[in-house]
């Protein structure tokens, strides 16, 4: 069992990050080195500055707000919370004053951010069970949502346990030690990380996150990189 824990928490993380980084870079280079479309693909009336409007379209999803307000609420909440979770993970690597503008304990949001993301993911998933989105969806769309849900549930559980149930065996310092050792390529697994009662939560969280990273460059999750240039095309 310990060797499985070790595999998931150390070599698999390196493999996953490598595939994510190399795969995403390779795919993006392949896409962007293709010839540009010879004509404009814009939609009128045009608004300037185009870059600003493209950024607006990319990060605020105005078309979704207009046509599917309920979906927009979940989407914007989901993406903001993803950002907060990303900040939370960066904070596990060390102290960053910039993130402590609003003083908080790691993770930000007292466990509610993960809960909100889980609810959003369930909404996205259940939406796909209903026609006509059901007819549009392919297996990949379900797998991605389920994968993200598993990551969030197991990850948040660790946060919830500490915050809501005063489970103190595994605290942020242990995670920090583990993550920092990975980042500096001197991997060590503190005892608490693999022997505490919630270790399997961490292992499952990391395992599913690894799968997600491996899957990322080959999936529709690439929209996170392509949305801006596409919206720029529409803005001209």
């Amino acid at each position, binding site marked *: 069992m310990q060797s499985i824990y070790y595999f998931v928490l150390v070599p698999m993380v390196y493999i996953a990050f490598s595939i994510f980084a190399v795969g995403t870079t390779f795919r993006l280079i392949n896409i962007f080195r293709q010839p540009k479309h010879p004509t404009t*693909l814009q939609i009128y009336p045009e608004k300037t500055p185009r870059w600003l409007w493209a950024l607006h379209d990319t990060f605020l999803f105005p078309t979704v707000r207009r046509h599917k307000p309920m979906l927009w609420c979940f989407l914007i909440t989901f993406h903001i919370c993803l950002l907060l979770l990303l900040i939370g993970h960066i904070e596990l690597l060390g102290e960053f004053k910039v993130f402590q503008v609003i003083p908080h304990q790691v993770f930000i949001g007292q466990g509610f951010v993960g809960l909100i993301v889980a609810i959003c993911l369930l909404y996205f998933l259940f939406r796909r069970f209903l026609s006509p989105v059901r007819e549009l969806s392919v297996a*990949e769309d379900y797998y991605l949502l389920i994968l993200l849900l598993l990551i969030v549930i197991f990850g948040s559980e660790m946060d919830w346990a500490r915050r809501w149930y005063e489970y103190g065996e595994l605290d942020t310092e242990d995670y920090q030690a583990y993550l920092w050792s990975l980042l500096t390529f001197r991997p060590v697994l503190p005892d608490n990380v693999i022997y505490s009662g919630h270790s399997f939560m961490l292992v499952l969280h990391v395992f599913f996150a690894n799968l997600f990273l491996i899957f990322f460059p080959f999936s529709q999750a690439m929209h996170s990189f392509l949305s801006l240039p596409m919206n720029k095309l529409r803005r001209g």
Partner: protein
Amino acid sequence: MDDKLRDDLLQLFRSKLNEAMTFYLETCTRCGVCVEACHAYASMGQVRYIAAYRAEIIRRIYKKYFKSQGRAWASLGESKELSEMALDELYDAAYSCTGCRRCMVYCPFGIDTQMLMSIAKLLLIGADAEPEILTLLADTSIEKGKSIDLFKEGFMKGVKSLDKKVIEHWQLEAGETVIPVDVKGADLLYVALAGAHSIIPAAAVFNAAGEKWSLSFFEAVNFGAFVGDPIRTKQILDRIISEAKRLNVKEVCICECGTAYRVMKQLSGRQPFKVSSITEVHARYIKEGRIKLDKSKVTGTVVYHDPCQIARNGGVMDEPRYILRHLTDNYLEMTPDPTYNWCCGGGGGLVALGEETLDFRMKSARVKADQVKGTGAAILSTACENCHTQLDNLNDHYKLGCKVRFLSSMVADALIQ
């Protein structure tokens, strides 16, 4: 389908893969925001008309042959083999899409379904499964460009026979040419359609404005674009470009034809002349005081249907409204935002296919008919030949009780001598 044909078709597919096309093929999250965007889905409620569903038909073939995900794990994205059945699906998707790009305004990423459908159309040409009539019409246009001298005389004769009708709208001094053709150094080259209705009112307005103009030998419509053939599209376009260069004109004015305008404006590249639609030119004449219009000629409420290729995709939105405000005090907006105007349901070559598509065109454009009916307008004006034909058909089919009119004809009828 034999391997040779499949390989040829995949080569054609590959030829369409540029940066923008790859964005569109890679990015869809199938979120369903585009569901209500397509007039065909809104009218008929069939899933196959949802933009994302149409796009997925192309995307599945892309995943199978151009993406490692499709090769390694086919069921993940439901990648699909290019087969006879797939061609049927491609036909259904491509020739039920009018290329109006309304879905592009709904999509959070701005995926261009018309672009994706151009892959389907090209594959159909490669498989000899495209609507033959469109290719035939395109070839006729190209042939005309090659042997201009053969039909020149007949064309001049035909044009001359229209003089009387033009003069009915606008009287010229004795000796002045009513419809000038092949005028070197003219300021404006007018590219009409093959039909008197596209020449007479335009000629009257040019003469009234004192324009130094010349009528093109060629018709504006680009059947190559309808059938999705980039080579034919370019050949048809090049006839007009070389004529404009030969005559050394400053401006090429495209008649009321959405596709012709967009193709000329956006596909002709950098040229020594500017490209305008006739609507823009008429608005300019009014603004400059070169023509004056009599508001009493138009009776009843008027609405304007924004042709997709001219408005949403071409940017001409204010000019027709400016003209209409000079034609009538009873102008009504059809929709609060022209960007979201419903397509008439006749674009993308559907009207050019005539009776063959009539049933589908009527069923798929029910929302357009409802929109027009909702305004209660007496006159439904537009600035595109295809839209005009389709709206006329809708008017008969749904008994809308309005009169469908070309904006340019309304301008010509209201000219004050």
